[in-house]
């Protein structure tokens, strides 16, 4: 836990944790609303968004990319809705049509355009490069109090922290409305809650979280964090508040343990080098989910036959 740790491991770990939290919180509501795969769809369509943004601006600066990705996410959601309504196609298939086609478009654009000068490729989009987000300006734990060193932190830290505040703020402010409209939309409407608008707001917040996390850690963690921690939490409790708390805890544990296993795990086996942190974080979240599937106190459906 010396200065090396602060320089090389602290920021990736922090970024992974923030990304995991930003995705897991809205994931709870998506899970309960049977929209868990929206996160999957959004994280695929982010690719054409950033490629188009790159083609227009010619840079890989963060803000145009995030704008492009958000627009792509919104286009995708509207397209899915349009295909569902116009063609009377079920939601899963409509989603499958849209996100694969948009992802394919992104791949084609990427291959066609000259991106050799910048770091933009499909592999990066899929599993990011968490390990590279190191904090060169740091000299030790004391740097955390040093303003000039702090300003040299990877910009993803501040960005993800801001996004996390937005996500948590949205959920905090609309807690009751979200809760009621998630479980009983008809009742919510009768209370004067604008459930449709709230649902769309949730999707927008999801898109923001997905895009910000994607920029830092790649799409595979995004999908895993939208689903695995909330799903595991769902098997722990019947109370929504506790479920959200559990999911946050699971997200943090996945991110921290995943990063540690990826960075130091191979050394324990006597191997050199490290493995993909993004992949390992997803794997750890999967192991947590597997454990709750087997032992979670609320894993059964209500009314399902009890084990004898």
């Amino acid at each position, binding site marked *: 836990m010396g200065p090396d740790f602060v320089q090389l491991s602290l920021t990736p770990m922090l970024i992974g944790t923030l990304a995991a939290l930003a995705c897991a919180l809205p994931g709870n509501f998506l899970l309960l609303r049977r929209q868990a795969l929206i996160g999957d769809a959004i994280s695929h369509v982010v690719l054409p968004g950033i490629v188009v943004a790159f083609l227009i601006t010619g840079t890989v600066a963060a803000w145009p990319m995030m704008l492009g990705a958000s627009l792509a996410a919104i286009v995708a959601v509207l397209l899915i809705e349009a295909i569902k309504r116009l063609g009377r196609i079920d939601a899963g298939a409509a989603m499958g049509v849209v996100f694969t086609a948009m992802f394919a478009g992104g791949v084609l654009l990427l291959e066609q355009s000259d991106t050799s000068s910048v770091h933009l490729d499909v592999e990066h989009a899929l599993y990011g490069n968490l390990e590279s987000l190191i904090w060169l300006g740091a000299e030790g734990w004391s740097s955390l109090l040093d303003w000039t060193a702090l300003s040299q932190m990877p910009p993803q830290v501040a960005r993800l922290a801001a996004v996390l505040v937005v996500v948590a703020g949205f959920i905090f402010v609309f807690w009751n409305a979200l809760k009621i409209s998630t479980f009983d939309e008809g009742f919510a409407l009768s209370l004067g809650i604008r459930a449709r608008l709230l649902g769309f707001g949730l999707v927008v917040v999801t898109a923001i979280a997905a895009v910000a996390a994607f920029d830092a850690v790649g799409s595979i963690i995004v999908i895993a964090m939208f689903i695995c921690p909330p799903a595991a939490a769902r098997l722990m409790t019947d109370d929504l508040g506790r479920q959200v708390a559990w999911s946050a805890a699971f997200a943090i544990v996945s991110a921290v343990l995943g990063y540690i296993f990826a960075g130091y795990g191979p050394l324990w086996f006597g191997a050199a080098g490290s493995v993909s942190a993004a992949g390992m974080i997803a794997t750890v979240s*999967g192991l947590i989910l597997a454990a709750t599937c087997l032992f979670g106190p609320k894993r059964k459906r209500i009314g399902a036959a009890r084990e004898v």
Partner: protein
Amino acid sequence: MEGFLNALLLQSGYNAALVGIGAALLGMAAGGTGTFIFLRKRSLVSDAAAHATLPGICLAFMAMVAFGGDGRNLTGLMVGSAGSAAVALVLVDWISRETRLPEDAAIGAVLSVFFGFGIVLMTVIQTMTSGRQAGLESFLLGSTAGMLFNEAVTIAIAGAVAGFLLLLLHRRMTLVAFDPEFAATTGIDVRATDLATMGLVLVVTVIGLKVVGLVLIVAMLIIPAVAARFWTERVDRLVAIAAVIGGVSGYTGAAASAAYPNVPTGAVIVLISFGLFAVSLSFAPVRGVVASVYRHVRFQRQVHLRQGLLAVARGEPIFDGLTLKILRFAGHIRADGVATLSGRAAAAKALRDEARWEVARETHQEDVSGARYDGLTAIETVFTPDEIAEFDRRIGDRIGVVA
């Protein structure tokens, strides 16, 4: 363009022709298989299977290298990928049956975790055999550039097997897709049939790895089936159309990829099938958007015309702009709103038909024809002239209409 035509006509070299035929077979098998998971509303289960092939590929590669073989042997990699995809499908099924989590959450969880684990294994391979860059990344998005003859043959054989199984199982799969309870009462094992469908998905996924890649193979299962759905209401035709759409996209996609530089095969195949989907969504005769809009507009016109004529006949003023426009366009009223001769005749006819319908509904309460009244159906299309004359007799001259 010439290169593209050459590729389409199998004239641009042996390898390109091989890839073209392989992609067409794959497209047909995927389109046909995809139809059944689409009808069963489980399209995205195949996405979990596709992403879950990655750890299997990596493990197979490691195993083959460990036993001193060539890690890139396609058959070995296909077996490995099928293994891990099968485990994933079983897990999705288990999670959605045994826990309270819904199926979509199970799909997403299994997909992301298996894929994440696959990425971990891939980084392990990269450090393990630094000399032999395995090139496993090519399975993410497919690559047909260096396809070997026996790889193409493997794909062709697997495609043919999938087609044969499809032919064998399509009746049961149809039954299970539309009415699982009824299928169970006729003695069909629903679970086994579902498993067989998923087995087919598995075969298609695995043979698609090399051509389209595991991220996009799910598109070949979903898009042709969804596109075909716009053209027909019959299952057999649906399967056939989906297979044709899949085959055409596979074939032209492979040709385009061979003819132009920097055109990845998988992506362009998916985009072509999406293009065919967009055409189907827009222009299919009954379910297409254009046809629906046309039907809606025609219906709207009929309603406004009818209501407008009745208003004219009753001497009521008309305020609705669209009604006035339609009446004027049909020559029933003049620009100042006064009815023309033809307008008065049509209005009288409309009012008389309304009265005839009233009688018809009284006298034909027992049979279907009386229930056909909706304010729009022309009475002549339901009743014979004799019957209409009878209605007229009953009406007598109760109301002052010009006959």
